[in-house]
């Protein structure tokens, strides 16, 4: 199923693809380190819950006539705050909490949409997004977010790692645990919400956890894991986009599949390395 039209070459498409590619690169660069925190704090399904919260936001936004983009960011941040509050209650593990919140908000948003009679809200536009629709405005916005995020992560890296290892120790050592936990959650939520419209919740979540999981197997330190995760995400992005171009398959799923291949490759090489 390769392209029938010989006139269409990469260079030809550059002006169309440059913004999507740059967007993808920024998203991958942010998803790498944030994904490590997601994996360390057992929040793999945070992105999924955020997607559903975003849907609830859109539904409520329709009822209260608030702009969808604002509603999405707001509802994601609210979910992050809520989750960082309820996690204090350690009787239920993180995944159970996420499951409850995620399924709950999905169900309520469907009801809200039905009751509001608001026609067809595209339930799954948020799941897949449209990377190819990215514009330079998006690139600049994401780049800006990325800079702030990088500054925060670099400044507080040690404290954040310490917090993920053991909250009690971190607290005694004078790290503002509660504040960092909330900031971290909001950062993840914010980046997810920003990226959702572009790459979809599926892709952003997958770009967070799959590269981080691949990096875990090949690293012996948190910093190295973050850098490897970034590289894995970039690799998946590149390979996925190329595959999408070559075999004419949808871009988002193609990137996720490439990430899975990177994961399998990582797993195999970790096995080989450990047997040496």
């Amino acid at each position, binding site marked *: 199923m390769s392209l029938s039209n010989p006139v269409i070459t990469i260079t030809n498409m550059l002006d169309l693809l440059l913004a999507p590619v740059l967007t993808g690169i920024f998203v991958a660069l942010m998803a790498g380190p944030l994904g490590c925190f997601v994996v360390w704090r057992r929040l793999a399904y945070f992105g999924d819950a955020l997607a559903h919260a975003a849907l609830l936001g859109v539904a409520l936004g329709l009822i209260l006539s608030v702009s969808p983009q604002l509603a999405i960011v707001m509802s994601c941040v609210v979910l992050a705050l809520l989750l960082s509050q309820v996690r204090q209650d350690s009787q239920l593990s993180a995944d159970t909490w996420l499951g409850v919140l995620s399924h709950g908000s999905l169900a309520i948003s469907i009801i809200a949409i039905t009751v509001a009679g608001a026609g067809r809200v595209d339930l799954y536009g948020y799941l897949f997004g449209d990377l190819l629709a990215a514009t330079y405005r998006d690139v600049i916005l994401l780049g800006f977010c990325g800079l702030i995020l990088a500054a925060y992560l670099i400044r507080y890296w040690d404290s954040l790692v310490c917090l993920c*290892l053991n909250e009690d*120790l971190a*607290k*005694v050592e004078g790290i503002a645990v509660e504040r960092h936990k909330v900031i971290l959650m909001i950062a993840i939520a914010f980046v997810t919400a920003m990226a959702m419209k572009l790459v979809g919740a599926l892709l952003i979540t997958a770009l967070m956890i799959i590269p981080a999981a691949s990096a875990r197997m090949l690293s*012996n*330190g948190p910093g190295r894991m973050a850098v490897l995760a970034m590289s894995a995400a970039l690799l998946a992005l590149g390979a996925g986009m190329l595959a999408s171009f070559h075999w004419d398959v949808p871009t988002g799923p193609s990137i996720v599949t490439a990430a899975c291949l990177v994961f399998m490759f990582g797993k195999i090489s970790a096995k080989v390395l450990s047997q040496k």
Partner: protein
Amino acid sequence: MTEPFLLKAESLSIHRQGRTLVDKASLSLQAGKVVSLIGPNGAGKTTLIRALMKLLKIDEGHLHIKEGLRIGYMPQKLNLDASLPITVLAFLSLNQKRDEHFFESAEKTDVRCIFERPMQSLSGGELQRVLLCRAILKKPQLLILDEPAQGLDVNGQAELYRLIAQLRDELNCGVLMVSHDLHFVMAATDEVICLNQHICCHGHPEKVSLHPEYLKLFGQQQAANVALYTHHHDHQHGVHGELIEPCNHNH
């Protein structure tokens, strides 16, 4: 004692699920003093010291902590998640410069040879050593140790006790330690606090070891003989049975 306190608790109480875990405990910690907290299993020792570090909500009472107090803490148990890869060296270096003091501390706690190991694969005793090292790295003004000797081998234990004395002497650091090792407690601490939900008795080791509450808790024979481990002695039993009884003496 004119020296200002590092930390002072006034009649702290902690209740959970309808039970009183710590009942009106008052204590104060000073620089250069080794205080040890003893008591039977489930007496509330861990609960109390976690409350002193504000890791738990206090239900009643007041807690004064010297401003900017640097605390080194060694918890009784620590669960490390396998998903965060980190070596001992990287763990110890978190928020910490690798200066002379760093390597000195590592030397003292005997962790230099395991620097490159991942934290998650450490043995019980190795983990204890690393935690001890981390606790003393920051040149703490107050060292809080929850059963630090647990899991350490004989050399490690001796080293631990030597280290505590050294820190007290060199850095003039205050120490609060939970221990079940009555011999060490009686031999090497400045003050003993005997906890059984409430504070039964406290004071200089010699005095405490003669206190009727102490003898009631640990048994006369036990207290004297515990290190000899003759498994033929007839010891007094029922410590736990007594735990729930009210305390009917003044202190």
